């Protein structure tokens, strides 16, 4: 946008300069016309009465004035036409320049926008990837923590299992232990492991 404003300002300045130049040029032409050396005057003595006897002097003056006015009008029209053409050309040029600049700027803007969008997409993709990795890490870490906690609690339960079983047995059986009823089991165990026991006792 700054470039566009700059171009427009340049254009306006150029227009003002051209107008000023045209005015200056017109004034110069006018001055040149005025400063044109006076035509050589040949003193020809003509007896007007004899030559222009039949022509009215006032009519001649009027005719001269009309010719001069006509020439001035034609010069002014040509100047105006030239000026109009210059202004039109200048407008077209300014418009072209403005369009070219705008298109260029817009293309640059689009390119920048596209680059920015691509960069944003890349950043977001990177961020998404990091988030996924972080989430995966956290999930794995959480899983490990849960597993460790579970193992820890199971370990604690195992450690307490001795006390639990002992307490349960003591509370359940109390003093009601009947070794007579257990004697079959006791002798079965002794028979089953007789060789090992004998080996250890006699060694």
């Amino acid at each position, binding site marked *: 946008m700054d470039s566009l404003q700059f171009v427009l300002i340049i254009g306006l300045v150029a227009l003002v300069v051209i107008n000023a130049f045209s005015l200056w040029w017109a004034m110069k032409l006018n001055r040149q016309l005025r400063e044109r050396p006076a035509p050589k005057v040949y003193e020809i003595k003509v007896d007007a009465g004899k030559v222009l006897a039949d022509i009215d002097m006032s009519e001649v003056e009027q005719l001269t004035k009309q010719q001069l006015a006509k020439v001035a009008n034609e010069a002014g029209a040509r100047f105006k036409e030239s000026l109009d053409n210059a202004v039109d050309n200048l407008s077209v040029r300014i418009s072209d320049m403005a369009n070219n600049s705008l298109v260029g700027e817009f293309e640059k803007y689009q390119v920048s926008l596209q680059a920015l969008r691509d960069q944003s997409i890349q950043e977001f993709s990177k961020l998404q990837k990091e988030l996924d990795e972080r989430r995966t890490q956290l999930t794995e870490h959480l899983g490990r923590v849960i597993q460790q906690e579970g193992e820890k609690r199971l370990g604690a339960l195992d450690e307490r299992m001795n006390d639990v079983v002992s307490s349960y*047995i003591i509370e359940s059986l109390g003093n009601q232990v009947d*070794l007579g009823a257990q004697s079959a089991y*006791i002798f079965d165990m002794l028979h089953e492991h007789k060789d090992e026991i004998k080996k250890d*006792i006699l060694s």
Partner: protein
Amino acid sequence: MTEAAPVRLPLDLYSPEQLSAVIIELRAYIGSLRDESVRAKAGHATIAAPHASALLLGAFHEAGAKPTDQPELEKLLKQFQAIRDKAPSVHLMMAALPNRELKRKLTDWFRTEVHPYALLTFATRTDIGGGFILQAGSHIYNYSFREQLLGHKSRISEIYNSVR
């Protein structure tokens, strides 16, 4: 001179402490018997057997020794001393103290299956629930109910989950 037949220990004499007590009593018994013998010789009377505990009398009976036969008793004393020094000892822990019958059965089993002079000591551990823990030398055999339960901890949680 013929080799004496190996002496048998009574089933009621099952522990090293009992054997030591029997040895001490037998030594005193032999001393009393010697005194009694001297008195009998002096008074021309018969030798009266000194008082003896049931355990010592059982040992005499199991060994086939006559309570008034001093040489035989001295030989028996030496045999008991030898047994005390060499007999293998087994320590049994149970949920309750076994009665006399069970002690006799256990003693008989060990003397039949392991060693003829095996000596047993008993102790109680109420937290084992049942079964027994046997200590022979430095080795421990745990056949208690508690050990059986703890050996299947995973089954406890499985049963708990299935019941819940």
